[in-house]
């Protein structure tokens, strides 16, 4: 296991290392700002290169039934489908629906977890986009007892 370290101090060295692997230049064009500004689930999926999403039991969304605090809502997306290139996590009623996008490679499982802010109770979506642009989703309702966006 990683021992604790001072990130700031250490970062420069690793950054140098990564730069030498040719990793850094790819950042420049990575972030798709427009997709993260779309308002609906459908628009976001489209912006991320998926067709109209179809509900599928092969996609799983995990999250709490009730979030005590909307500032931190643990959510997970996964799928048993093969040939998946992207996994999306969305919160329908947030000001922008798209929370996170994960690019799936052969080296990782199509299974990711993070935590999201939620302004109010809402359906949350996991969407899997396949290599041929098909989109499959699963959703569940998460009730928020205290909003997390307004501060």
């Amino acid at each position: 296991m990683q021992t604790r370290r001072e990130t700031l101090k250490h970062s420069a060295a690793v950054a140098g290392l990564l730069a030498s692997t040719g990793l850094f230049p790819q950042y420049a064009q990575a972030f798709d700002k427009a997709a993260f500004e779309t308002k609906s689930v459908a628009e976001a999926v489209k912006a991320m290169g998926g067709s109209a999403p179809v509900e599928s039991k092969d996609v799983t969304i995990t999250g709490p039934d009730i979030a005590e605090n909307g500032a931190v809502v643990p959510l997970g997306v996964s799928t048993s489908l093969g040939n998946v290139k992207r996994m999306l996590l969305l919160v329908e009623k947030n000001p922008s629906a798209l929370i996170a996008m994960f690019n799936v490679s052969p080296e990782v499982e199509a299974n990711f977890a993070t935590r999201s802010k939620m302004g109010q109770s809402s359906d949350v979506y996991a969407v899997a986009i396949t290599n041929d642009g098909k989109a499959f989703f699963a959703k569940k309702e998460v009730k928020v007892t205290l909003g997390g966006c307004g501060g």
Partner: protein
Amino acid sequence: MRIRAQAAGDKATIRVLMSHEMESGQRKDGTGKLIPAWHIQDVTATLNGKVVMTAEWGPAVSKNPFLQFTIKGAKAGDKVGITWKDNKGDTRSDEATVS
């Protein structure tokens, strides 16, 4: 950053905590002015220097973000690297050894 990389069978679970404000862009300051969004937007994971996962995040990912994913074929002793970049161009990288 805190990276924990734990091998089990022929894969390793990676858990990451990152220090970041993740300002949503929805909040107002004391004078009623909107505080601009400030968030991590790109995350890259490497295994022994090779990119295995990239992600894009919006401002709705929670403050001090948590990320969990699984790398296939990773074994004890392998190096897992995580790099993030935010919308102000700030970046951090760190590395952990799979145990």
